[in-house]
């Protein structure tokens, strides 16, 4: 079969909503787009362990500590599922980590904001994991088999993350005046960065066209953002917190909430590396990776020695 025949076959599979598997022929751009998107997704899980890992030793109760440990462990697991999926496309784990540490690959801008109070653990679970779930539910239907399977597994595990965050917010919103204030403050700081997680507007998103056509993405950035806002606005009402957007208002004719404009200049700044924690997040990853080098080395030597003995 020549290239054109392969492409036609690929397009037929996509049109029929069939999955593409690692050994199938795929256009180079499809492969590149997937490696970029899946690795960015995996890096977000791995870097996303940091803002919460920071609170494990300071959790206010043993229950909260156990939950947070399990949540951070899940995020490590999710990063590994995604790295495995990316590796089926021909990139190695070393290249993936190198791209993260040298800034060639991005991760979600949300993790470049600091988690400064316990209420932030609530806001991160409720908003950040909430936004991630909206995105990941949509991606369960992505056209690339290994990515889809990773998303299905992640979605099964992720809903506990959002519920534990909302539970923290509920307790604080219904607690003392000071706790209530902390909860509102956390919502104020995390709301807009959470909306940015869905990426630029559709009209301003260079990668959306092909990604939708090839069914890598099944819903556009703006559609997903709207769906998140509609769900979350009602949840804020239930616990008596105010979303920091004076333009947020139910629009009966659209059947959706209207909302104010996102500060895209801030988004661009943080993407380009100038967020509050960009440097800290990467240098922490580099340090942890370096500090673990002797363990990896010892394991390799041990395995080689045992293999030699067995031979």
């Amino acid at each position: 079969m020549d290239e054109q025949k392969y492409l036609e076959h690929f397009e037929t599979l996509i049109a029929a909503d069939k999955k593409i598997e690692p050994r199938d022929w795929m256009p180079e751009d499809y492969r590149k787009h997937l490696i970029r998107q899946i690795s960015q997704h995996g890096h977000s899980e791995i870097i996303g362990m940091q803002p919460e890992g920071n609170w494990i030793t300071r959790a206010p109760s043993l229950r909260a500590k156990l939950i947070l440990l399990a949540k951070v462990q899940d995020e490590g697991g999710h990063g590994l599922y995604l790295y495995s999926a990316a590796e089926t496309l021909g990139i190695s784990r070393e290249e993936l980590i190198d791209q993260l540490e040298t800034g060639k690959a991005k991760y979600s801008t949300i993790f470049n904001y600091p988690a400064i109070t316990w209420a932030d653990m609530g806001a991160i679970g409720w908003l950040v994991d909430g936004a991630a779930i909206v995105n990941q539910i949509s991606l369960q239907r992505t056209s690339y088999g290994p990515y889809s399977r990773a998303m299905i597994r992640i979605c099964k595990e992720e809903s506990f993350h959002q519920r534990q965050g909302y539970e923290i917010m509920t307790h604080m919103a219904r607690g003392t005046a000071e706790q209530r204030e902390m909860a509102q403050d956390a919502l104020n700081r995390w709301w807009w960065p959470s909306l940015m997680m869905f990426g630029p507007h559709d009209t301003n998103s260079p990668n959306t066209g092909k990604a939708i056509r090839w069914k890598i993405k099944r819903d556009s950035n703006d559609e997903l953002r709207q769906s998140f806002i509609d769900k979350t606005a009602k949840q804020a009402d239930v616990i008596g917190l105010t979303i920091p957007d004076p333009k947020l208002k139910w629009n009966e004719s659209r059947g959706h909430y209207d909302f104010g404009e996102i500060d895209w200049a801030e988004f661009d700044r943080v993407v380009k590396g100038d967020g509050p924690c960009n440097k800290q997040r990467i240098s922490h990853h580099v340090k942890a990776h370096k500090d673990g080098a002797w363990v990896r080395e010892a394991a390799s030597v041990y395995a080689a020695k045992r293999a030699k003995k067995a031979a």
Partner: protein
Amino acid sequence: MSQDTQWPLWEVFIQANPGIPHKHAGSVHASDKEMALTNARDVYTRRKEGTSIWVVPSNYVVASNPDDSDMLFDPANDKIYRHPTFYIMPEGAEAI
């Protein structure tokens, strides 16, 4: 720089309950089979997803080529006599 490789890749198969087949769950990197099993346990069975795990070095998996799909899998279509519905049973015959 110290030696730093990503280690061999292992495919992970998990049996969710006794009596059903092991199913492919994903893959892990590990320096040896014990580590592969430990990593597979930590990565793929944090919520009682399994009662048994197999790990297999990925380079031992021999896979068919998608280009050969027609040759390998099509013949079944023209051998409909392999399906029970091909046969005409006499009127009144039951439980067959």
